[in-house]
């Protein structure tokens, strides 16, 4: 659990109170205690994020930089994954639909699968792997090398600069990446349909939009904000409060990916329930 202590430091002959944070040092004996301590710590971390995100000053430049690194730099990986998923899903689904003589439903079926579920979840998992591990390792190494402490001492707010910007970037970049992945995935599906058949692009995409409804698109996009937020939050938390030492960096990166991916599935499950309740 994060331990917050107040220290009196002297800067330019002025006495300044700086809030110092230390990584959890109390190692609980029971696994349950450890779990609940972790939950409490994460809750405090989340509340602090909401407090810091509202409070000025805003780190716009760092936010832009992180958005570029997290969003733009992830695009090739996400696009390739999306394309392959669309292609493979189409090729795999074709024989089953052919058994019922309903190959013409292939674009509609693939579109609904990609837009509603596969696109957001696969992209979020890729995102958790690439971005979550990156953020976790970066913040953990900064923690190990005491850069975060140094920022605190030099009157910078490391939480605002390092954590808030990354969580915000992850929250807003993942939906965009999902939209790109969906688009590229549908193109992959178009290629997949045309491997064994001959469907014009116009017919293919008109069939897709015939089968889609706002009820498919909006919940799928909205849940990706939560995916991004969860991945960013867990990655920054794990990196920010990593154990000192090189071992802590690897552990932080690993748990950021594992917990981030798990959170994606948990949020997805909740989102499905909420969507079905709202639609009925």
């Amino acid at each position, binding site marked *: 659990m994060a331990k917050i202590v107040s220290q009196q430091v002297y800067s330019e002959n002025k006495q300044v109170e700086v809030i110092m944070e230390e990584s959890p040092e109390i190692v609980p004996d029971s696994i349950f205690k450890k779990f609940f301590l972790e939950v409490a710590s994460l809750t405090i971390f989340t509340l602090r994020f909401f407090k810091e995100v509202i409070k000025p000053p805003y780190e716009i430049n760092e936010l*832009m930089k992180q958005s570029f690194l997290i969003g733009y730099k992830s*695009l090739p990986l996400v696009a390739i994954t999306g394309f392959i998923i669309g292609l493979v899903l189409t090729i795999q689904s074709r024989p089953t639909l052919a058994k019922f003589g309903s190959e013409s439903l292939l674009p509609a079926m693939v579109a609904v699968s990609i837009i509603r579920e596969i696109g957001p979840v696969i992209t979020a998992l890729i995102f958790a792997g690439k971005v979550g591990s990156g953020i976790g390792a970066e913040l953990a190494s900064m923690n190990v090398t005491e850069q975060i402490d140094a920022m605190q001492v030099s009157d910078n707010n490391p939480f605002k600069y390092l954590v808030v910007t990354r969580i915000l970037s992850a929250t807003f970049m993942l939906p965009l990446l999902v939209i790109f992945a969906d688009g590229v995935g549908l193109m992959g599906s178009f290629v997949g349909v045309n491997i064994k058949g001959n469907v014009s692009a116009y017919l293919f995409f008109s069939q897709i939009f015939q089968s889609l409804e706002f009820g498919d*698109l909006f919940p799928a996009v909205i849940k990706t904000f939560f995916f991004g937020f969860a991945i960013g939050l867990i990655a920054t938390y794990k990196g920010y409060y990593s154990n000192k030492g090189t071992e802590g960096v690897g552990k932080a990166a690993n748990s950021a990916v594992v917990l981030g991916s798990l959170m994606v599935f948990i949020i997805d499950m909740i989102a499905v329930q909420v969507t079905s309740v709202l639609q009925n």
Partner: protein
Amino acid sequence: MKKKISHKIRLGIFVSLGILIFILAIYFIGEKQQLFRSTFRLSGVFKDVAGLQVGNNVRLSGINVGTIDNVSIISDTSVRVIILVDEHTRKFIKKDAVASIGSEGLMGNKALIISPGTGGKKIIENDDVIATSQPTNIDDILKSLKTTIDNTAGITGDLAKITTNIESGKGTIGRLMMDPTWRQDLQSTIINLKDGSVGFKTFMVKTNELDSILIRLNKTIDNTSSITYDLSKITNNIQSGEGMIGKLLMDQSMGQNLDSTLINLKNSLAEFEIFMKKAQDSWLLGF
């Protein structure tokens, strides 16, 4: 600094493109649901909507022209369906148009199908209540299908009995199929029939020849009949003493006359012979 600006531009393009794709997706999906077109409202009251839902398509002559806006129960026997139809298709829907509930393919969603109505009627107006026809209930189909299946079961049972009988050689067909002697008999019958048909054919050819003989014979008989008729007439005439021969044969006086004529002729011939002899002997006429 330059690098920072380039990163910002690339980020800007990335975000703009993402938002653009999202907006396009919203537009195309909304276009399908007639969100960006002018529409007019119609309603219809059904007894049973058979699973029709809000957002299902409305079809006119097989083309999607609108969507279902609302489905609500108004009483225990009626459900009101509110329909949004594309304004451009209003001119094709007449006052007597009828709405029915169908489905998009065998396993597809339900759809409301509008039949346009007759040409002479007025064009439908906003908030008009359209006439409806009740959908075919799957349960009813299943009930009639069950009766059919029961009947089929009875028929197949009977067929099974018949096949068993045939297999065991019972009955005419069974014997015919399973008993070899019957088969041989049938075969020989067929051969005989074949031969018979060949003979019959030859007979028929001959009959054709006989026909011409008969025709000729018929003619001969006709001729003979007319001859006998004539002969009978002649005989009658003869018998009644009419005509030369009749008189000759039947008239006694005529016979006597003839007889005397012949006597006279005989006498005359004798005298003529004497005359001729004398003439020969004379010097004047002697030759």
